[in-house]
């Protein structure tokens, strides 16, 4: 029998992939370039004849980072577009709510744009993440800083959201593994713009490692403020959420010395290397803009999707796709990661890279 | 005992004494008028009764209740209804709805019976409506029953205010310049209406009015005020001929 005939989102000449993303809300800086990056791949693949003769249709619903809109997006993707799989959906709560709908139908959720551990919650069968979690990033980053500088007290500045709590817990775990103390924490709101108070508190507590789970704009301000206050022995550590080229490029060297533990390498720091250079050229050709880090992630996730679809063969069903995903094992030169999946391993890359800003660019200092 | 009693009431706004040690009583069944120059404190007296202001000193009693102990809405519940000098109607509602709000103090239903619109609620609505229709007939407002207040001319609004106050079925009716803005013809209607309100409905009327024709035509007693204090109190004729009143209020010519 031909399994795909019963599988939604797959027809003779088309595969529908969906995404509930943020194209206009507070995370548009992530969602927009990632979506564009993915489109570059799909457009190219489609132009070359598609995968096993099927064109890929990538349908992105804008959730504006709001739950009701996200639910409408899922309704459309599942009931109207009848997607085969989801790719790069953004937002932990939105993804988690989506699982309730995807799981019963066995629809795969691939490479969500959040590094929360919940992305691999049970049933894990149809869930695949690309990268290490915020938790691991914070944990490993803390250990690195301790090893490198002998720092003794870890503190966390975070937004009280699941994103923040993941990083808080990772930092605590890192401190424990390194055998140092977890000193203090401060909580924030996304509209906060001044951090002198929290920083003096952290100074008072003797913090010398500060992990951060803040918005990008806020992270920049924190680092700049600390400079002004002369808190030079405090090492600031962000995660993949702060690992943006713009953070390194803030004028005046404001962010110099800022660490980020992420699961990929910075794009522009490696612009000369062949894979990034080829990507930059292709992206620019396709969109007319310079890519940013998240364009690269979108691109690489789409590449992975195409690889899996190819490996699944012409008889595309959820089972064959999941089997194909689980068989993937390749080096992604663009992001600098070995991607390996297996029946019990639904997290593609496990490496955490720690980079630091030096002279307006990210420099890799450690990987694990 | 008077129905309404003011006892040495004083009210100050900053440095200004708007009501100055004022005492008077309104007897049940009479039409009592207050006159006085602009800014004498007449409307303020009304506002004191309505409990919009707390007096600085003194006591206000109505029908055995100490008004100073209760909130504004309770005053209406005791049976005091009023109109406003500057017209305060519910603009975005019809005349009928305005009058029905007047029935509020007689509400017997509660939240639940209203949401379910039980037979009791229905009966109450019909009764309210009958009562309000009588007032509409009485004040000749039939033509405006379903009109929005916002589209009514000044004169009609004045009458609607009186109607709304009557709809509360009060013991004491406070009218703040009921005839201002009315033509001579309408003023004479108003005169007969007030007369009927007192005689047929048995409602005591306390009114502020500048139209001396109306005042002397309907009122039993008149209080003249100036600068918040009592100037004269007596029958219309007495007050009108009181030299201080002529001097401060009526002017020599009249």
């Amino acid at each position: 029998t031909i399994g795909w005939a019963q599988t939604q989102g797959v027809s003779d000449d088309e595969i529908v992939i969906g995404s509930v993303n943020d194209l206009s809300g507070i995370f548009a800086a992530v969602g927009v370039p990632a979506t564009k990056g993915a489109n570059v791949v799909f457009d190219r693949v489609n132009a070359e004849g598609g995968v096993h003769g099927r064109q890929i249709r990538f349908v992105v619903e804008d959730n504006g980072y709001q739950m009701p809109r996200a639910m409408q997006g899922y309704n459309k993707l599942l009931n109207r577009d009848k997607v085969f799989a989801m790719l790069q959906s953004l937002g932990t709560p939105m993804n988690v709510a989506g699982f309730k709908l995807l799981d019963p139908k066995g629809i795969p959720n691939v490479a969500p744009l959040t590094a929360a551990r919940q992305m691999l919650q049970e049933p894990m069968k149809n869930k695949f993440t690309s990268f290490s979690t915020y938790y691991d990033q914070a944990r490993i980053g803390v250990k690195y800083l301790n090893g490198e500088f002998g720092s003794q007290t870890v503190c966390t500045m975070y937004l009280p959201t699941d994103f923040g709590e993941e990083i808080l817990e990772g930092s605590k775990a890192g401190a424990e593994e390194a055998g140092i103390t977890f000193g203090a924490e401060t909580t924030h709101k996304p509209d906060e713009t001044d951090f002198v108070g929290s920083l003096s508190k952290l100074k008072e507590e003797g913090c010398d490692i500060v992990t951060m789970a803040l918005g990008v704009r806020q992270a920049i301000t924190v680092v700049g403020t600390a400079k002004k206050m002369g808190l030079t022995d405090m090492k600031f550590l962000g995660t993949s959420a702060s690992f943006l080229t713009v953070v390194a490029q803030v004028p005046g060297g404001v962010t110099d010395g800022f660490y980020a533990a992420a699961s990929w390498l910075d794009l522009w720091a490696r612009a000369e290397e062949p894979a990034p250079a080829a990507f930059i050229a292709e992206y620019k050709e396709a969109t007319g803009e310079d890519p940013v880090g998240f364009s690269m992630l979108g691109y690489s996730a789409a590449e992975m999707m195409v690889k899996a679809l190819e490996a699944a063969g012409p008889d595309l069903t959820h089972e064959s796709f999941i089997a194909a995903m689980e068989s993937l094992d390749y080096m992604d030169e663009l992001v600098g990661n070995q991607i390996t999946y297996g029946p019990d391993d639904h997290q593609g890359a496990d490496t955490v890279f720690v980079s630091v800003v030096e002279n307006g660019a990210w420099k890799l200092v450690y990987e694990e | 005992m008077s129905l309404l009693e003011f006892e040495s009431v004083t009210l100050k706004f900053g440095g200004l004494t708007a009501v100055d040690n004022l005492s008077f009583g309104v007897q049940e069944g009479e039409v009592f008028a207050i006159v006085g120059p602009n800014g004498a404190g007449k409307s303020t007296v009304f506002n004191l009764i309505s409990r919009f202001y707390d007096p600085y000193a003194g006591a206000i009693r109505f029908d055995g209740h100490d008004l100073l102990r209760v909130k504004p809405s309770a005053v209406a519940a005791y049976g005091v209804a009023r109109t406003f000098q500057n017209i305060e109607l519910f603009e975005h509602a019809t005349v009928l709805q305005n009058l029905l709000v007047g029935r509020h103090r007689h509400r017997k239903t509660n939240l639940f019976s209203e949401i379910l619109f039980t037979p009791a609620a229905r009966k109450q609505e019909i009764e309210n409506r009958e009562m309000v229709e009588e007032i509409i007939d009485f004040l000749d407002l039939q033509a405006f029953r379903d009109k929005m207040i916002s589209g009514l001319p000044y004169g009609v609004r004045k009458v609607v205010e009186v109607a709304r106050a009557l709809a509360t079925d009060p013991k004491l009716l406070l009218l703040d310049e009921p005839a201002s803005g009315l033509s001579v013809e309408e003023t004479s209607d108003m005169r007969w209406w007030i007369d009927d309100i007192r005689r047929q409905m048995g409602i005591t009327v306390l009114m502020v009015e500048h139209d001396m024709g109306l005042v002397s035509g309907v009122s039993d007693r008149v209080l003249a005020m100036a600068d918040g204090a009592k100037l004269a109190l007596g029958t219309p004729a007495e007050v009108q001929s009181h030299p201080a009143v002529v001097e401060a209020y009526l002017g020599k010519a009249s």
Partner: protein
Amino acid sequence: MDNAQLLISGLANGCVYGLIALGFVLIYKATEAVNFAQGDFMMLGAFVTIGLTNTEYMGLPFWLALPISLMIMGALGYLIDRLIIRRLFGESQTAVVILTIALGFVIRFAAGLIWGHEPQTLQNPLAGKEIRFGGLVLGMEDVAVIVVTILLTWGLYVFFSKTKLGLAMQGASQNQLAAYYMGIPVKRVQGFIWALAGVVAGIAGILFAAKGSVDPTTGLLGIKAFAAAVIGGFGSLPGALAGGLIVGVIEPFASRYVAAGYSQIAPYALLLAVLIFRPHGLFSQVRVKKV
């Protein structure tokens, strides 16, 4: 020492809130409308300046870009009134409020389209400079913010209370009909105030972008500035500044001394407290209609 630093940084930050709040109050004072897009105006002002100044865009000299961008913002404020808000003349203020919320959506969209969604910083001559006195540090941008805010508040205050036009604006907000009877060209006056609000938003945007960075969602800061304006008493210009300063100061102190998990609540909790005890804000007295 420590507290002095908190205070002074809080004041500088509060001035930014105050600046945005001024924009709210300006429009409210002259039209009684609440411009929910004021925060987005500020964001736009910041991006316009970045677009003129930053080397990756037009790269004009900062001091040249400054007046140009303020002019652009003024023109924009005027056009928004002329083309959109004015069509609602005499309609209920709720309609205007909803309109400005929708306008905020459009501005955010446009900014994202033109300047992208990543945070950007204004390249400016003050960047990185700071002054120190006795262990306290204050960035030059902060100094600029404080000076400009105080001057602007004072200037606008004088404008409203002392000039004929300012008085006319207040009159127009209280009774449009009466203002017309006095011969005040109410619509033109409102156009002027929207232009002025555009300029004030431009100033706030420039200072904000110089102090930190902006992205299209920066305008959401407007909500906090709105809260600040309300704390001060919505119709009062010095009140707006004071409200901004209070919020600005409370934040660092709360983060410093209040337990994590609660500290970030401080500005809004303060707002609730102020409103409960002073229902019309700190700086305006309660008014009751005389009947």
